[in-house]
């Protein structure tokens, strides 16, 4: 049996792009619940234009809305941090499908912190998963996955963008599977191959789990420092707190950093936060492989 109607929960560009694909393929979208309001989202305008029921809902309102539904639907959870309560998950009329930005069963947890850990852990490959939702976090059967290589100088924001791009591509390719109730996917316990190298890959990450609690350690080697700085770099969006460093018992916020490889003309550079020039100290660390230049702003007590 195949369903033909869907609801979407999520926020931002990815649910919007998936909604466009659904409409283009003749699927009916009953509603879109924007479960987290983000800047530059045009989901509401898209819904108004296409006469789709749009609501910006809190977790409580989302639950109440889902409990009020009486139709058989595919519910897509896309860049959505709302956790479906067990009574919703158990409802036979719903087929709930979640997008997760890792190749499950590794790197479960909050989607915004996963790219950070993938970079910090020095992974060489990454990818995405669409899976059925069960009563635990990111544990349901896998419907489709894809993977790609990390690029040099990958940051949290570039990796997030590539996950979205990859996720949309396989969403388009696997649409029939999503709406087919006979497709039950593959249990995660049956997956034997793994693309990841870190022993921490099986942890379930919360958004508050920031690499090394957000502090750079001066004793780290070049690669470790580089991975740390890039892992917290969501520029221009303030997704994570600014990285910090303690030098001679004084705590500084790292407001800008440059990573320069010796013999490499293309100097990588990223701005994290602008500061008033008089309060910024420059700090350069030299390694055999290159330089890391930090621009530091002293953290005021209580700030």
């Amino acid at each position, binding site marked *: 049996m195949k369903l033909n109607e869907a609801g979407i929960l999520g926020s*931002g*560009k990815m649910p*919007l792009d998936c909604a466009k694909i659904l409409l283009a393929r003749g699927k009916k979208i009953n509603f879109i619940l924007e479960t987290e309001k*983000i*800047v*530059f*989202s*045009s989901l509401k*305008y*898209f819904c108004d234009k296409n006469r789709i029921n749009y609501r910006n809902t809190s977790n409580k309102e989302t639950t109440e809305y889902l409990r009020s539904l009486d139709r058989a639907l595919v519910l897509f959870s896309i860049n959505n941090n709302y956790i479906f309560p067990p009574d919703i998950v158990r409802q036979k009329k719903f087929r709930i499908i979640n997008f997760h930005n890792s190749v499950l069963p590794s790197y479960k947890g909050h989607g915004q912190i996963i790219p950070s850990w993938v970079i910090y852990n020095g992974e060489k490959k990454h990818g995405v998963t669409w899976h059925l939702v069960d009563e635990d976090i990111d544990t349901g059967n896998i419907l489709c996955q894809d993977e790609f290589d990390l690029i040099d100088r990958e940051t949290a*924001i570039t990796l997030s*963008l590539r996950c*979205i791009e990859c996720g949309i591509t396989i969403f388009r390719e696997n649409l029939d599977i999503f709406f087919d109730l006979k497709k039950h996917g593959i249990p995660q316990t049956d997956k034997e191959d793994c693309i990841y190298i870190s022993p921490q890959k099986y942890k379930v990450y919360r958004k508050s789990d920031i690499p090394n609690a957000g502090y750079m350690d001066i004793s780290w080697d070049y690669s470790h420092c580089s991975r740390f700085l890039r892992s917290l770099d*969501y*520029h*221009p*969006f*303030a997704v994570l707190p600014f990285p910090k460093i303690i030098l001679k018992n004084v705590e500084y916020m790292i407001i*800008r950093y440059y990573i320069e490889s010796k013999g490499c003309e293309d100097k990588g550079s990223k*701005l*994290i*936060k*602008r500061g008033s020039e008089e309060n910024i100290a420059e700090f350069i660390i030299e390694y055999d492989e290159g330089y890391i230049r930090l621009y530091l702003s002293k953290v005021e007590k209580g700030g």
Partner: protein
Amino acid sequence: MDKILEILKNLHPEHDYSNSDDFIKESLIDSLDVVILVDRLEKEFGVFIDGADVVPENFKNLNTIRNFILRLKDGKSL
């Protein structure tokens, strides 16, 4: 202004940015476009764009982007 329009046109050649008052409302840019746009504006105009300034008011249309860049070049921001 021409440079800003050129950057936007490179993002989405199919969109008419010149005649839009609200890029977000008209779905001409989204959050992912903003990441690329900020990077290109920083390189083109030699400015640093703070995350706190990456708000719809500054990226609403060509004029607001132009004024935002001018403020940054003058050392001011919102």
